[in-house]
């Protein structure tokens, strides 16, 4: 059974006539690393919002872990996201007024399941931070005192705490230079493997694509096409 399976999916933002997504089919297997190429405006934010359960499609099916997300209520979808998904944004991932460790532990505040799977939460956070190559003297600093590269690694550690089945990454490397980008990917892959999490990595940076198990062009599977 696929980890995530989209079928005949149509989505338009509320109040808009034009659909931004019209996808025949998209599958992600458990533990898979999928590169999804999508320039801005191609509907990638909408796709991530759909998978995250923040919005509902007008039509079609979206199954994740055997659960039909389109049939779940809003709070249940929120719960599902908290339990099974890790998220990394392009930037500004962290709450600036929390220290690094508390930021990593954030998903455990909203999901009992993640907290349970993480075991002793502080240990799990520290193991992940170490795994993302962040020295212990950074852990107690406020998140906004870290460099952008360090912040992205903290965000990755946070996305992986409690071993979610799927990590959604929305151009997490776009703010990093080439060296740091490769280094970030190395660390992210290693930790995803450790956690057994699948990775859906959305980016427009073709250079990265080679390193993934599989790559897909969003424009090729999205019949709604890109307006821009």
């Amino acid at each position, binding site marked *: 059974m696929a980890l995530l399976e989209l079928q005949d999916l149509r989505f338009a933002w*509320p109040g808009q006539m034009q659909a931004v997504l019209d996808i025949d089919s998209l599958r992600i297997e458990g533990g898979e690393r999928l590169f999804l190429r999508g320039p801005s405006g191609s509907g990638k*934010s*909408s796709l*991530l*919002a759909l998978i*995250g359960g*923040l*919005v509902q499609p007008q039509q079609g099916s979206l199954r994740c872990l055997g659960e039909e997300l389109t049939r779940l209520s*809003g*709070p249940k979808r*929120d*719960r599902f*996201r*908290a*339990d099974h998904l890790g*998220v990394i*944004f*392009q930037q*500004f*991932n*962290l*709450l*600036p*007024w*929390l220290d690094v460790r508390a930021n990593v532990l*954030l*998903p455990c*505040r*909203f*999901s009992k399941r*993640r907290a349970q799977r993480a075991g002793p939460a502080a240990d799990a956070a520290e193991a992940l931070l170490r795994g993302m190559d962040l020295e212990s003297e950074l852990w107690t600093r406020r998140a906004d005192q870290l460099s952008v590269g360090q912040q992205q690694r903290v965000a990755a550690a*946070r996305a992986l705490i409690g071993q979610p089945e799927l990590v*959604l990454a*929305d151009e997490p490397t776009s703010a990093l230079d080439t060296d740091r980008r490769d280094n970030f990917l190395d660390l992210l892959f290693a930790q995803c493997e450790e956690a057994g999490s699948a990775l859906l990595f959305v980016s427009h940076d073709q250079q990265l694509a080679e390193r993934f198990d599989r790559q897909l062009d969003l424009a090729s599977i999205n019949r709604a096409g890109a307006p821009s």
Partner: protein
Amino acid sequence: MTLPSLAIRSLANRRFAIGLTVLTIALSIALLVLVEQLRSEVREGFYRSVSGTDLIVGARTSPVQLLLYSVFGLGEATNNVSWESYQALSGTAEVAWAVPISLGDAHQGYRVVGTEAGFFDHYRYADRQPLEFAHGARFDDLFDVVLGHQVARKLDYALGDEIVLAHGTTRVSLQQHDNLPFTVSGILAPTGTPIDQQLYISLTAHEAIHIGWQNGMPRPGANLSDEQARAMAERLTPDSVTAILLGLTTRAAVFGLQRRVNDYRQEALSAVLPGIALQQLWRITGLAEQILRVVAALVVLSGLLGMLTVLLTTLNERRREMAILRANGARPLQIAGLLVFEAGLLAAAGIALGLVMAFAVQAIAAPWLLSTVGVNLAVSWPSALLWKLLGGIWLAGLIVGTVPALMAYRRTLADGMQVRM
């Protein structure tokens, strides 16, 4: 639940703006509490001063005016009560005691009350407490004077000091009774009533210092010496007194006696029940109180609106924060709850700080009010009504918090996973 701890850390991050908001609310609450507390305490203070007196009798005038000039030293009497009427009243069966008071003189701005020794026996204040002497005793010699506590303290008088009384009740008196000085024989213990602000001499002495006076002036060459005054005082009966304080044998008789005094045919008199006269006074001051209350309420409202402004202006900056929380599994309802919790916390902190400020002001202002107005301002626990009011304000704070909460709720629903900004 760890959401409150998140809210508190988020607030701590914005401590400057948040601190100012709390201060704004606190100031408005302090004003409200002060207005309410002063109102009830001032009333309480007035009631304290007349607790043992059943009726006050004076020349015909309005009850409020009679009460104010006879007990509180505010304003002047327009007319006196004849000595015959006083004697007739004190001989009435229902009257347990009658204490005459004669006003019209002062010492350095403090009123001098001519009365009888019975005043010290019968006058009651607060919970029917009798007057007590801090030093010395009541007047015995013709030219003895008893001082209220504040008078002695402010003017730094001790037993045995000689003082000169002035004619008229203004602070600067042109006419002095300097031919007949008085000796301090006693100083009263503090009462927290106008008693503390007055000097007491015997009614005979009050007459004696005015021998030979006409129309508020001494006749030329009429200044008596001490010995002459003493000799004449033997035969002296006052023509009139300013007012009479009455205690009745039974309180049930009060209305009957009041009617008889008001209908007294020999002289136009007024008898007032202090409690009822005070009620009338409150009716007069009620409008001012209402205005103060409305002002205080408006200030509280502006405090809450200030909080709303701060919460709304920071909402935009915090949009990213909300999105991060949301992406990490927070429900929109939890995010809305976070904002309502914040507002509730701010309102509660403002109310608590405001109460502390109000109490501090009361504690600081109490001695000053006692010495200038003679009203004792006890720092008392707020009334049940005030607590309800504060509870209502806190609820209003929560309701104010629902505005940004609702906006954040709708926004998090519309923003999707990531804020596009």
